[in-house]
């Protein structure tokens, strides 16, 4: 039998594509760590072979829907581009982005792609554009009694073997939200035609009282003000959104909205596991049709569908 010497040095002689092959079975996050090992590992960590595997298998089809030409030199650049830029797809009705640590697909269904009851009646809902939104239009809820929004996504568009969460992305309009405080809103998520979906109750206003004027200003004034402020808005797109009141959401659980990093709020509507088998339509709904009360003053950007971290 041959006596083996320490094999470490020998291993460095592995060809770069062999190392890249190993890397391609890890995750983007791992590869970043691996690139810090040595210069030869850093070189393997830039390889197209690695990053091609991290891109979704149908990335070409997704990119081709986007109006922005992508001329990236390497697969790594393309990967990072898709992580850092929300690509508008489906004629601008959805946005697409990759979740950076694992390359999973995330979408936002724009308000325009949702079915919104009364959505075409300007007395109740208006379509407006606001700075800082991904889409050219967002839906402004002026006032309704019957609040109903529904959206859907086909599971074949999503990454397989992934737990996804769906989130309503919204914020107060300049007029201020009313009618939502302490008002339970029903939300549901489920496979179309299979079951009723899972239902829960969320709140679109923070658990603690908002700035007092929202409670005090009578509705009629806030609506007048809303019209004025919106024309003002259009003239000065640089206006920064009103910061939403900070709430320690951990105290209340996920039925209350949380601030996102982008100036919008979100509330979780539910989650579903995409095993990746047969293509199914997942339906997501938001309803407040029970109280009979008037409510309004929110801007709805859409419903985001992204991998959910297990807590």
């Amino acid at each position: 039998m041959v006596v083996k010497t320490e094999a470490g040095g020998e291993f460095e002689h592995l060809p770069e594509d062999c190392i890249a092959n190993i890397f391609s079975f890890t995750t983007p996050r791992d590869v970043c760590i691996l690139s810090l090992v040595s210069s030869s590992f850093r070189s393997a960590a830039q390889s197209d072979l690695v990053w091609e595997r991290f891109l979704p298998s149908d990335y070409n089809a997704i990119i081709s829907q986007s109006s922005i030409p992508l001329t990236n030199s390497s697969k790594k650049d393309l990967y990072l581009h898709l992580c850092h830029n929300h690509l508008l797809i489906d004629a601008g009705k959805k946005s697409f982005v990759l979740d950076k640590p694992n390359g999973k697909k995330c979408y936002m269904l724009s308000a325009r792609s949702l079915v919104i009851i009364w959505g075409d009646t300007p007395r109740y809902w208006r379509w407006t554009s606001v700075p800082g939104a991904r889409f050219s239009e967002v839906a402004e809820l002026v006032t309704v009694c019957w609040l109903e929004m529904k959206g859907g996504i086909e599971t074949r568009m999503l990454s397989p073997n992934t737990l996804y969460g769906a989130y309503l992305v919204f914020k107060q309009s300049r007029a201020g939200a009313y009618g939502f405080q302490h008002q339970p809103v029903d939300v549901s998520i489920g496979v179309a035609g299979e079951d009723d979906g899972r239902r829960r109750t969320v709140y679109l206003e923070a658990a603690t009282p908002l700035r007092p004027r929202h409670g005090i200003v009578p509705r009629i004034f806030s609506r007048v003000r809303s019209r004025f402020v919106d024309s003002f808005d259009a003239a000065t797109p640089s206006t920064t959104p009103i910061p939403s009141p900070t709430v320690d959401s951990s105290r209340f659980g996920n039925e209350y909205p949380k601030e996102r990093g982008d100036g919008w709020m979100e509330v979780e509507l539910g989650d579903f596991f995409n095993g990746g088998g047969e293509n199914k339509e997942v339906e997501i709904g938001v309803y407040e049709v029970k109280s009979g009360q008037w409510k309004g003053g929110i801007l709805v950007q859409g419903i985001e569908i992204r991998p959910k971290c297990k807590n």
Partner: protein
Amino acid sequence: MAEETESTKTEPLKTAEEEFKKLEITEEEESELKLETSDHVTFMVEASIAMKFGAVQQYLEVSPAASASATAIPLHNVASRELILILEYYRMHDWVDAGERDLKEFDERFLKDLNYEELKELLLAANYLNVEKLFNFLTKSIANIIRNKDVEFVRTFFGIDNDYTPEEEAAYREENAWAGVKFV
């Protein structure tokens, strides 16, 4: 420690090999190729298996006479210890009666019996021999080991020295900070 693992492992290997030999007797006599490892051990290997090795194919393309003659095909970068493992893997995966579950169980056991050094040696051998299936299996297995590990673990695992200057390393750590790379 490596010595211990080796001595405990040769026994089951031998018996497994004998079992395979017995199986083969019942089948028709198959043509064999003579392979010689870097430590000068010769092996008579079924042509159906030896021809899965890219390095053997390549050798025979250059010197076709070796397939018929008694000349051994030299495998310069593969030691007998690795070739035994590679043959064990391919004989199992080549076995027609092996179901998916058998193969899964076999793969798991095969991997469990290897320590890190052996695993790396085997990857080098598989890379040299150009054996696709085993190579992919080993790369996936190594990927699983180095997942979610820190830089120091990976350096130790591969036996690789840090060749960065402190400035370079600091810059690259900064660049990859999003991945949650810990400073050590």
